[in-house]
């Protein structure tokens, strides 16, 4: 039994990429204070793929994610994110505190103009998917940190997949962007939520681009790990993981590479 056992080996993916970043650069400010956050980044994510962006603090991971989310514009290069708008999840759950968990999940559907009964039904479905059935009437402050993050996951899924099909199996897969979503949680809750995310990913077939600076997390979750260098952020290397990968060896390997990238900065 290998540690990647709970990963379903998938058929090779076809069709147009879900996310395509071509030669993207991003410069903040101008003149002497200009910060080159990203420089000539290329990244392609296939539909249904789970990709982790790995890099040291301040290397431009969030910047890249914001560009893909359309929250910011690149200085040069192009960002294409499939047909539908990608959904974003942040380190904080960022739930609206005056709405119940159910209403929070409904919000993206409401913004998209869905009717009241159908979006309520869909929110119930998604809350069940993240194992929060029956908690739709709770307010965010009545939930634990891990539960709030799962409500945020359900909301992001609602945003990424819209009304979907009538059942959880017929959901239109969307694109989910996650910026260190478990970074603020304790180790046990994080471990549990990583397993939950994998389960949800398998159940929905959603494309996931996941930012982290935790090598172990990236190796556990992703099918492909992309390492970014710091200032300017560039793609240094990438690794695929499969059922025959030795996790410990890969972890060791990526950690070494990451150290090298970081210490290159000190020189």
């Amino acid at each position, binding site marked *: *039994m290998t540690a990647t*056992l*709970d990963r379903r080996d998938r058929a090779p993916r076809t069709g147009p990429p879900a996310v395509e970043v071509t030669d993207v650069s991003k410069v903040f400010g101008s003149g002497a204070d200009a910060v080159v956050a990203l420089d000539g980044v290329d990244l392609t994510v296939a539909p249904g793929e789970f990709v982790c962006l790995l890099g040291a603090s301040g290397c431009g991971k969030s910047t890249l994610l914001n560009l893909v*989310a*359309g*929250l910011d514009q690149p200085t040069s290069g192009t960002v294409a994110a499939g047909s539908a*708008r990608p*959904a*974003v999840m*942040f380190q*904080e759950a*960022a739930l*609206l*505190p*005056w709405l119940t968990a159910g209403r929070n999940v409904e*919000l*993206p559907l*409401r*913004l*998209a103009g869905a009717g009241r009964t159908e979006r309520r039904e869909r929110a119930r479905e998604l809350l069940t998917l993240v*194992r929060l059935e029956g908690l739709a009437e709770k*307010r*965010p*402050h*009545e*939930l*634990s*940190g*891990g*539960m709030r993050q799962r409500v945020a996951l359900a*909301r992001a899924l609602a*945003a990424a997949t819209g009304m979907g099909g009538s059942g959880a199996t017929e959901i239109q897969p969307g694109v989910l962007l996650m910026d260190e979503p478990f970074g603020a949680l304790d180790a*046990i*809750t994080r471990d*549990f939520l990583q*397993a*939950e995310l994998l*389960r949800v990913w398998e159940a929905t077939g959603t494309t996931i681009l996941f930012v982290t600076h935790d090598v172990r997390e990236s190796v556990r979750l992703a099918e492909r790990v992309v390492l970014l260098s710091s200032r300017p952020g560039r793609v240094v290397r990438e690794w695929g993981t499969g059922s025959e990968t030795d996790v410990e060896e890969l972890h060791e390997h990526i950690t070494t590479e990451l150290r090298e990238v970081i210490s290159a900065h000190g020189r």
Partner: protein
Amino acid sequence: MAGEDRAVITAERDESVDVGRGLDALDTPTERRVPLWRRFATGVVPPIVALVLFVVVWQLLWASAIWPEFKLPAPGAVFGQIADEFASGQALSIIWTSISRAVLGFLFALVIGTPLGLLVATVPLVRSAIGPLLSGLQSLPSVAWVPAAVLWFGLTDGTIYFVVLMGAVPSIANGLVSGIDQVPPLLPRVGYAMGATRSQAARLIMLPAALPGFFSGLKQGWAFSWRSLMAAEIIATSPSLGFGLGAYLNQGQSLSDMPSVMAAIILILIVGIGVELIAFRPAERRILRARGLATGP
């Protein structure tokens, strides 16, 4: 092999479900419901005891006759005066005159202060132009406007409403500005990431998020309306202005009728506290409780 793996997976999954349930149960904040008698004992009893003590001390001071009767009347005389005014129906008419003015003035202030606050909060140029003035006006006692208002509007309702507006509008506008300023920037970002248009983000995210700050501005705005109204009524008295609590107080002074002066003060206080308790407190509690911000029982 494959079947065996699946069995292992299922076992792992079940275990993880249990872990999840356990984590949820352990981490969920528990809400403590304060029993009704406890809330009564901590919220209602102390003010009543304080009030009784106050009246007792007053009665003792009066009985000791340190001050002459026309300076310190007996509690009984003052409460008798209030009872008489209610019995003759005059109290209700006086109170109604004042409250209807204060409420109308407050509503005007709301209609002016809300767009003003929105403008200051969202347009940087407007903010730098009139933001400081608006907070400055908040500390200017609105009674200072009475002489100017009398010269501009004469002894009409215009004077009264002008003074009330100058008292309440800055509070309401500033409340909205600080409410909007205190919204965590992540909330509108999340909204835009979910595809909200600007107007949707304003309506569904910014305004509800700014509500606690706005509401405390409203509360202060009401207090300032009431205060400013009393100042205006005491200073600007005329038969053409109707007979409100302020005029009643003024009349008590000119007749050297201490019981009715104190009766007026008590009525002004009761109306102020009453509106706060009946209208603002429950709404504020609902707003804060929905957000998990409520403090105290």
